[in-house]
């Protein structure tokens, strides 16, 4: 169904106080897609994700998820609807156990009854979390914490999952493993949007990408086309 996007972000402007961080941003994500948002530090990637999940509300523009306009919704209602964000810095609770971090992921009404099923799925993706059930989250390694963060997001039974700088500070082997799991998650029908600084990697893992610069979208399209784009080559591959 072309044109029937799961997420439609239309012409949003977002401010932190009087500082504008997003300028007329429009993106669309179709169900089942894996889409990347690429940009340097401070380009507005995280602000875009935070605007989608209701952590900040845009001054102008609209955000539609499915057939609901969610522009002014509170974040906890948006989670209920099926959008789950793994924020930069992971957003797990250091003094809760691994199990409690996963359980709290299924806090929303819709996910509670599915908790056992989703927990089994998460343990399937990340077996190490099953073995560390009773450990406090802060005692996990960086990679394990990121797995826990993704696992907890999956516990909310999302239709769309937003990942902010998932690979930041992690060893390449761990990052490979995480991307492998993302593919699996996606194959089970969950739509994925992820934000990264690493352009080369991102353009191999996603299907489509938007490139942000200082709060504006400067390029977008299929990753094959973006790889060929002169501007991308110059700016990011130094060719």
């Amino acid at each position, binding site marked *: 169904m072309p044109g029937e996007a799961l997420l439609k972000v239309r012409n949003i402007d977002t401010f932190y106080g009087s500082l504008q961080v997003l300028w007329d941003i429009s993106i669309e994500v179709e169900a089942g897609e894996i889409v990347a948002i690429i940009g340097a530090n401070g380009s507005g990637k995280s602000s875009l994700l935070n605007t989608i999940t209701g952590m900040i509300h845009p001054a102008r523009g609209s955000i539609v998820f499915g057939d609901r306009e969610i522009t002014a919704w509170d974040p906890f209602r948006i989670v209920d609807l099926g959008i789950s964000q793994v*924020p930069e810095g992971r957003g797990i609770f250091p003094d*809760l156990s691994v199990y409690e971090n996963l359980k709290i992921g299924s806090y929303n009404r819709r996910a509670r009854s599915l908790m056992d099923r989703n927990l089994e799925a998460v343990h399937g993706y990340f077996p190490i979390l099953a073995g560390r059930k009773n450990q406090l989250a802060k005692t996990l390694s960086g990679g394990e914490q990121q797995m826990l963060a993704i696992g907890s997001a999956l516990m909310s039974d999302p239709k769309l999952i937003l990942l902010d700088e998932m690979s930041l500070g992690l060893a390449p082997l761990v990052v490979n493993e995480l991307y492998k799991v993302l593919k699996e998650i996606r194959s089970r029908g969950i739509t994925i949007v992820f934000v990264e600084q690493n352009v080369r990697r991102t353009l191999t893992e996603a299907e489509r990408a938007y490139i942000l610069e200082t709060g504006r979208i400067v390029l977008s399209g299929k990753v094959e086309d973006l790889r060929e784009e002169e501007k991308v080559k110059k700016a990011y591959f130094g060719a």
Partner: protein
Amino acid sequence: MTVFTDLATPAVMGILLGGLYAVIALGLSLIFGVVKEMNIAHGDLVILGAYIGYVALTVFGIDPILSLIVGVPFLFMIGFAIQKLLLNRAFKISMDATLIIAFGLSIILQNLYQLIWSPMSRGLTTSYSLNSFTAGCVSFPIVYLLDFIVAIVVMLLLREFLRRTYLGIAIRAAAQDWRAAHLKGINTGRVFAFTFGIATALAAVSGVFLGLTFPFTPVSGISFLIIALGVVVLGGLGSIAGTFIGGITFGLAQTLGGHFFGVAAQMLVAYTMVLVVLAVIPQGLFNR
């Protein structure tokens, strides 16, 4: 042997009394640990619990402990409303704003109690509140034992609630990182209101047992707020076990201080210990 027999009674009484202090401090510690508000009105809410027991006893002839069936949900609702309608709006402005509101609330409550119940000293005198318990060389009022048993029950219930239920885990999550809690679908405003409600429900329980143990007046809340602060300083914030041990330490300091230096000096001894702990180990005696 005589030294031991002399010490046994104040030591046991201090430990038992510590249970009451721990329950009073638990509500204060819960609100501070989760919502990061210093509820200056907590002592006055405890006294409200005592007055509810007093009304039950003198007007309706109902045992004050039994009156908790009404008192606990009533104070829960009051606490829920205070956080939801007053403090949730204020703490978006600043933490100082919540402190000032709680202070105002404290003054309003004290004056309200004076209007309704007069400044006279009241107590909850029941058939059992004057009885003593004697075992060997130790003898103490039976209500002290009740204070301690209730403390244990309340603390175990609170611990299990915070560990096992969705709301309990959500409270702990919101305490650690409220932004991340939002992303988990937790309505933190509502969770904070629940937390405040649970803390005032605890005030209802501790108020009735306080009334069975000590006489109280409309302004007694301040003294018990200060004791609760002392307990929190001793035990360290944010842990139930720490609050319990803090309560017992404070109770022991009071009764043993009274034993060695005279009743007039018992609070001086307890507060001096709090000050020393605050100066030397400000994170509390039992915090990690």
